[in-house]
């Protein structure tokens, strides 16, 4: 037992020094908890429930007739993109950026995130019988 180790070395978060009470740090945990459900559902439905199921447009369209699945897919895209990019922000923060540079990074990540979410949401439309709002 290394019960004598200093508190700083006891958890990985304090090593990254993101800091307790920090919103970025908290949201990384909240999004992680949500992902357990949404990503778990995604893997289960697409890869485990029926092993070796051929994935087709028609099959996905069939599933998305249930509004709950539309909600799960939209929520998954939003939460996973947030968690990934917020995670990158944590990594970048460890490089001791100036305030200005950090602000630029935060804006860039938000733009990438919002655009990616819109692409993901747009891609659901054809499965639901609507034309996509934009292509490519």
């Amino acid at each position, binding site marked *: *037992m290394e*019960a004598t180790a200093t508190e700083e*070395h*006891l*958890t*990985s*978060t304090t*090593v*990254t*020094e993101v*800091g307790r009470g920090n919103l970025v740090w908290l949201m990384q*945990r909240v999004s*992680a*908890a949500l*992902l*357990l459900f949404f*990503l778990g559902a995604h*893997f289960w439905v697409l*890869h*485990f429930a*029926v*092993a*070796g*199921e*051929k*994935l*087709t*447009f*028609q099959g*996905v*369209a069939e599933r998305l007739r249930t509004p709950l699945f539309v909600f799960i897919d939209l929520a998954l*895209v939003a939460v*996973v*993109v947030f968690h*990934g*990019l917020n*995670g*990158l922000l944590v*990594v970048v923060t*460890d490089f*001791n950026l100036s305030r200005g540079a950090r602000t630029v990074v935060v804006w860039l990540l938000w733009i990438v995130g919002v655009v*990616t979410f819109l*692409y*993901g949401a*747009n*891609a659901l439309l*054809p*499965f639901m*019988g*609507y*034309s*996509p709002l934009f*292509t*490519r």
Partner: protein
Amino acid sequence: MYRVRHTDLWPSHYNLGMWVWLAQRISGIVLVLYLFTHIWVISFSIANRQGQEFNQVMALFQTPLFLSLDLLLLAGVLFHALNGIRVILFDLGIGIRQQKAIFWGVLVIVSAIFAWGVSLWWPFVQGKPLV
């Protein structure tokens, strides 16, 4: 604000927890790269309401080569997700003093679920037709 102490970051000073933290970070970054490729490739393949392009892309991604790559993805996601739970438990003040034991527990669970996934997909990796 904080200062990173270089002695702490020098690899020869790493203890198990540091290596696990690094693995969590690297797996997270690799997953981000995969995620964006995944979302953009699928979105780009959906140009209309008929979905031929989507079906072509899916047929490619369900060939034995890509199915075996999926197994790598499964391993990475399982490690990152279950170790993530471990990190959150410590943040909640649970199990900090048993952190090494909990890490080995995480590895056992990751391996078990991974083995299950492999057993489900292996026939298709070897070329059995999809159902």
